[in-house]
């Protein structure tokens, strides 16, 4: 069966995308895009508060989802032509799975998501499942075009019967990352974050055991992919100021939950989310709702003092400012129990706590994996068209030598308290 490059059999619409140019949509895709739950993604910024550091980073989950669908089409069409994907219908299935992969993202994406992870044990993938299961619109469209919504959920959760499909949506070199790295690099202007997508797809294959692999002639494209990722983690995703604004927004969200329990969009349980999807209230659960809610709270006479202070700091860009930043690359996981730097930060933190109030300071510790070093997900390299080995073992690739992890340990205080805190830490000899 002849399949065109994008994988779309009957094109009913073309959307102009700033990364990929014209993206073709099939009927079912267009109907999904037109549902109100999908339109919600227009109001969720891809990089949360990154526009506080990179003014151009205002792109949304909407454009990323459509971009991921486009890449899913390019990759699966290629793999179908080479016989790694057996059914032509799977191209459409994979495109739909990519289109819907972020449908459950919280307002301000990863800034707010950790709140739900700690509070309810839910991440955006869990919420995506609820949205697909409960949205009458999504279910109806998929059913009318003969698609089983359970297959899409299974691909998102990595439980689909074809391991290759699961790998394409979630592995070290996956469709999601291929889109967001280019898109985020473009919008932030961080030029060393770009990747050679065409070359990457052209040299992408599957080895004899069903693992995603790269032909050795495509190694430079993969090297570049990993290096771009490493730069983006450092320069964008874990940028000190950007993380500071994510932390303040999360703190505001926590306090809103505490003081405004009646607000229906401040979900307390997974049942609340389920209900909001069914009655379509979820459509308004986005960045703009949160900003509007914060504005109303700020202007109300009886709002709690600490909440007002944080909201004002957020709007006036006088949020958390870093006091201590001990970040470094490493090949070992960060062991918080014995890490000396974390111990020092904790000591400094207890000193600062005597000067500032609890809501005026925040700490941030993370152990970021730059590279998945695991036989299950590490891409393999096909040597001379025959044997495949993990890329991490291949001497011809820089991947073997790049650091595996990036450790971040930081302490922040509100900008209004920063000078006072720095002065105190200098006096005590913690900083020079």
């Amino acid at each position, binding site marked *: 069966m002849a399949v065109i490059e994008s994988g779309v059999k009957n094109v009913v619409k073309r959307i102009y995308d700033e990364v990929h140019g014209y993206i073709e949509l099939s009927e079912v895709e267009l109907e999904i895009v037109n549902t109100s739950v999908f339109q919600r993604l227009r109001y969720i910024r891809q990089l949360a508060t990154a526009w506080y550091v990179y003014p151009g980073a205002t792109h949304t989950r909407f454009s990323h989802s459509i971009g991921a669908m486009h890449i899913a089409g390019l990759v699966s069409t290629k793999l179908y032509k080479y016989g790694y994907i057996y059914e032509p219908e799977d191209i459409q299935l994979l495109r739909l799975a990519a289109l819907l992969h972020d449908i459950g993202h919280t307002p301000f994406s990863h800034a707010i998501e950790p709140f739900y992870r700690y509070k309810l*044990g839910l991440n955006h993938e869990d919420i995506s499942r609820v949205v697909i299961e409960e949205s009458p619109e999504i279910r109806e469209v998929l059913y009318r075009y003969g698609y*089983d919504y*359970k*297959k899409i*959920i*299974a691909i998102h*959760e*990595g*439980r*689909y*019967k074809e*391991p*290759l499909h*699961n*790998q394409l949506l*979630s*592995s070290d070199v996956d469709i999601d990352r291929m889109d967001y790295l280019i898109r985020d690099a473009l919008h932030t202007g961080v030029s060393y974050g770009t990747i050679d997508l065409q070359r990457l797809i052209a040299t992408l294959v599957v080895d*004899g*055991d*069903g*693992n995603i692999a790269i032909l050795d002639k495509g190694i430079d494209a993969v090297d570049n992919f990993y290096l771009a990722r490493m730069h983006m983690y450092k320069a964008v995703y874990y940028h000190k100021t950007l993380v500071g604004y994510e932390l303040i927004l999360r703190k505001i969200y926590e306090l809103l939950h505490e003081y405004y329990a009646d607000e229906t969009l401040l979900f307390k349980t997974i049942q609340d989310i389920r209900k909001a999807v069914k009655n379509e209230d979820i459509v308004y659960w986005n960045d703009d709702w949160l900003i509007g809610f914060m504005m109303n709270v700020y202007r109300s006479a009886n709002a709690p003092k600490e909440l007002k202070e944080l909201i004002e700091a957020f709007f006036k860009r006088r949020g958390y400012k870093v006091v201590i930043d001990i970040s470094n690359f490493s090949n*070992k*996981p*960060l*062991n*918080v*129990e014995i890490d000396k730097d974390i111990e020092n930060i904790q000591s400094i933190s207890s000193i600062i706590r005597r000067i500032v109030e609890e809501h005026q300071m925040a700490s941030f*510790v993370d*152990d970021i*994996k730059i590279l*998945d*070093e*695991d*036989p*299950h*997900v590490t891409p393999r390299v096909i040597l001379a068209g025959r044997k495949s080995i*993990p890329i991490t073992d291949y001497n011809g690739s820089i991947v073997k030598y790049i650091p595996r992890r990036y450790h971040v340990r930081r302490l922040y205080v509100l900008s209004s308290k920063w000078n006072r805190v720095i002065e105190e830490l200098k006096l005590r000899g913690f900083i020079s």
Partner: protein
Amino acid sequence: MLNKKLALLIANTMKSLNLDKVDTDSFEFRFVVQKVSYVLQKVGCDLGLKFGWYSLGPYAKILQNYYNMVASVLNVEMYGGSGIEEELEGDLKICVEKAVTFLNDYKKYVGEINVESLEILASLMMLCTEIYPKPSSPVDELLKRKKNISQDLAVKTWKFLVDKNICTL
């Protein structure tokens, strides 16, 4: 950030089955940690791990953060450190016992536990309980994807799982 108890559970189970002699820096070690954890979660207790279906069978991404911790627990043990059994109590101890009993039964049934038999066991368990759409014959599904595994071992493992009421015909 990391749950030390989880690392102890995994290390304890591996040690009880003599699976702790694998080079802790190798891919093989990571593979064993994944498959043992899968069995622990299926027959021992809910560890809250989310496993996906990959070309090498069940895989939970979060376990990547535990490889070093499991290795250090096992290495301490190997060089005469404090026993790891005492640190597990109550439900956690029962959890390990259930998984070890199950894996020992499997060992008796198929002869030995190694990388191949663990892969077949964990993969068939996942194929018959979690994969969507559920394959009509999990054994055929596995053999179709893994050309190098022993058909006899796969069939024998399937019978074992049916006997244990984990998979149904």
